[in-house]
């Protein structure tokens, strides 16, 4: 059905291996849903980190082996001995009725680990469970599918969707601590962003099977994390209703990948032309290709997207107000660059009708600052 789009996306990616959506690209969906460049890079499964690096702006994301080790060790601990610790916190801490039934590892199907096969298998089992005839409580590594920009992407939650009190709950296992009942809100938010995508994907799956999705999948996320400064897990419900609604809205609003692809110039590719593991494509050719696509940089990209240093450099070159971030930017509604702001402030530019109100406030502010500059020149 998607064949021509698929072909275009494959051409964009070029010879590189396809990358799946991950936590960071999902977070970017929520934080910067309008960026065409990111949408295309992610939908095509391009390796953003490799592209940024070859373009001369290596991304700053790296994971400390300590964090990695700790995360893996904690997840293993929670799942050890037939999920004993997980079951304990679900029952004791959250008071859920979790029947003593088996669990399913959906990592692969009889040795076949292709995404489509695993997805079909997951669907069959979870739909059966939702209809009340399943034989398991915990589902490890299910393969879900989410529609992003009209295009299906596979999500592989590194987590367990379990069925308690006749509902599915999404469980996120994280290694940041819950101290005295409180966790770092930034980390909680990024954990729930991922979980929200899983909630939406799971609900879609059940809806298609004629099951009431809202009733079947809770929008309370179960966060399992170390208690205080120990290794012992504890759990908490995180209310993700608002975030699920927000992400649903963004997904619906997201321009369709198909439409984006159609606007691209013929033959556009982000291929790095590797040879013996080394990218050989002339850098200028790559940056020319990147520059053909719109990007909407914002400082938050530094937390979410591997392309951030590249896009920031591009925004700086243009003296774009995007550099300063939305709080500053929104003061100058309708004006995009520092050059224009200063032109209006100095009265060298004439504001358009839309800008006239803002320009009055701007000139007033500029007068205030000019007076102060004069009074305090040199001092301090």
């Amino acid at each position: 059905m998607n064949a021509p789009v698929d072909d275009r996306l494959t051409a964009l990616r070029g010879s590189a291996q396809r990358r799946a959506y991950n936590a960071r690209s999902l977070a970017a969906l929520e934080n910067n849903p309008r960026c065409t460049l990111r949408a295309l890079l992610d939908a095509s499964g391009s390796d953003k980190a490799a592209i940024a690096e070859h373009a001369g702006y290596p991304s700053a994301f790296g994971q400390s082996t300590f964090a990695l080790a700790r995360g893996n060790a904690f997840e293993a601990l929670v799942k050890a001995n037939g999920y004993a610790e997980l079951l304990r916190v679900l029952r004791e801490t959250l008071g859920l009725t979790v029947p003593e039934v088996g669990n399913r590892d959906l990592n692969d199907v009889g040795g076949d680990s292709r995404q489509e096969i695993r997805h079909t298998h997951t669907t069959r089992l979870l739909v059966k469970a939702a209809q009340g005839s399943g034989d398991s409580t915990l589902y490890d590594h299910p393969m879900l599918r989410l529609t992003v920009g009209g295009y299906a992407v596979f999500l592989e939650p590194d987590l367990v969707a379990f069925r308690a009190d006749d509902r599915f709950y999404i469980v996120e296992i994280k290694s940041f601590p819950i101290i005295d009942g409180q966790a770092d809100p930034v980390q909680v938010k990024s954990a729930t962003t991922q979980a929200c995508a899983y909630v939406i994907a799971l609900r879609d799956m059940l809806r298609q099977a004629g099951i009431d999705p809202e009733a079947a999948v809770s929008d309370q996320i179960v966060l399992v994390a170390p208690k205080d400064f120990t290794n012992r897990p504890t759990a908490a419900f995180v209310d993700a209703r608002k975030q699920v609604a927000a992400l649903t809205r963004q997904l619906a609003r997201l321009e369709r990948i198909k439409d984006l692809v159609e606007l691209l110039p013929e033959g556009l590719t982000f291929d790095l032309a590797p040879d013996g593991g080394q990218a050989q494509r002339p850098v200028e050719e790559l940056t020319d290709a990147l520059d053909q696509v719109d990007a909407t940089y914002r400082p938050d990209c530094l937390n979410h997207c591997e392309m951030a240093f590249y896009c920031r450099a591009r925004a700086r070159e243009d003296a774009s107000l995007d550099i300063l971030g939305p709080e500053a930017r929104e003061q100058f509604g309708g004006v995009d660059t520092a050059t224009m702001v200063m032109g209006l402030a100095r009265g060298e530019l004439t504001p358009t009708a839309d800008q006239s109100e803002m320009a009055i406030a701007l000139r007033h502010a500029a007068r205030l600052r000019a007076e102060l500059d004069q009074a305090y020149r040199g001092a301090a």
Partner: protein
Amino acid sequence: MSMVSALARVQAMESMTAVKVTAFRHRRLSDRPLVVIPLTMAGEAGAPLAAMVGSSKRNATLLVVAQPRNRDQRFAFAADLGELVTEYLNSFRQDRRGEGEKSRYSDAPQLLVPNTGGIKALADLARMCRFRSTTGPYAVADVVPEFGMWLTFLVERAEQAGTCLLLPVTGMLTEHWATGQSTLEDQNLASLMAWISPPPGTDVAQAMADAESPDICPPAGPTTSPQFDNRDLAPAIKRFDAAHTAGDTVALAAAQAELRELIAEQIQPTWRLMWDAISLLRSVPEAPRAAARFGRDCAAFTSYSDYRDGGGLPQRKRDTAIGAARRLDRLEQALVDFESDMAFDDPFVLADRRSVGEAFAGTVVDADPGRVVLSDSNRRVLRPRVTIRTDDPVRLAAGTKLVSPHMPDSHKARIVSVLPEGGTMLVTVEVTGGMGTPRTPKADGVPALDRHIAYLPDPGWRPAAEFPASDSTPWTHHSPAQVPDADATESENAAAEGWGHDD
């Protein structure tokens, strides 16, 4: 963000240099601050890795935890850091003045950390230390719980606007300078300093690029860069562990020395930046009202000192419902007061408020200094009125109480009307305080015709909000923590709770 502060950022962007956004430094800067740079291990819950501490640039002490996962080593670190910090705190408990309720130390300590992450790291450390028992199976050094309680006090005080016992240097810098980058990037001390004072021979653009390169400017913490962790730290810790297991004292000493050296290299650039930042901040004049705020810091420091001397209990893990409401009320009031103090002292901050219509300044175009009215109690009172013409987009309603940085402190006024006139505003105010009586009007009590004057809302004195005593609250308002485990058992449980791995 106001139009004035947004414009300052655009100006910085255009000129590629930081621009001033205040005339003053609104925080008192101690003559002898204690700089603390905490480093923690990535991924672990509040696992200290190292700290560099000292009260002068030349006098740094580096403390390192060779194996941050090890519980004993963590507590040894907490004890060492605790000794240094409590010794510093105690040095401010010498000169005490005043009698009875007014008695207080004349000076107070000041801890400076690089960024808000540094405060969080100290808060975690405080939480881990304050409930520890100094006897029994998990005994720790005497100083550990003491240190934890003091640190908790400092961290809690730091939440209150305008205080200066514990501050992030990035916050102090951004209060005075705006850069042409985002507030997110301003949290990186090296990036911020690149805009304000790039290293000699380096332009801002180059300094910014260097600031983001972990090999040139290692992060100011609390976590170290992943590259450093993977390339240097992890192998060094492994060597330490191996030597430890083998019981090889020579190799152990070598591994320890190597770790210290690696961490010193990571932390020293930040140490230098901290002191550079401090000397830059010293060159900014202190705001007039900072002294009164500092007086309140001294009082808080004194009262907590006395509480500690009386053997007071550690702070609770979580506030009760009433405690939380009381705290919120206090924090809100402190914020209003601080913002108003700053606007009163500082024409830059005032301009910020003016640009959004929360304050105004202009010329007196009409004055009736002798206006007399009959009060409710039928007395003749002086109620002078003046009208000020301003370009500011005034958004204050009639009846708003005002104060003015350009009049004596006793001067109070109230808005009578705000009327637009040909692109400007005419604000009529009635003077309600500091004008004297009809018989003896005060000279300077009323702004004279043609003079320039600014007004801003009076943050006002308000009575402390009243909260019920804890035992008279309905059960619905008890926090969950209060019901199942009462405070007495709470600290016992916490003393035995694990911190890290027991290996």
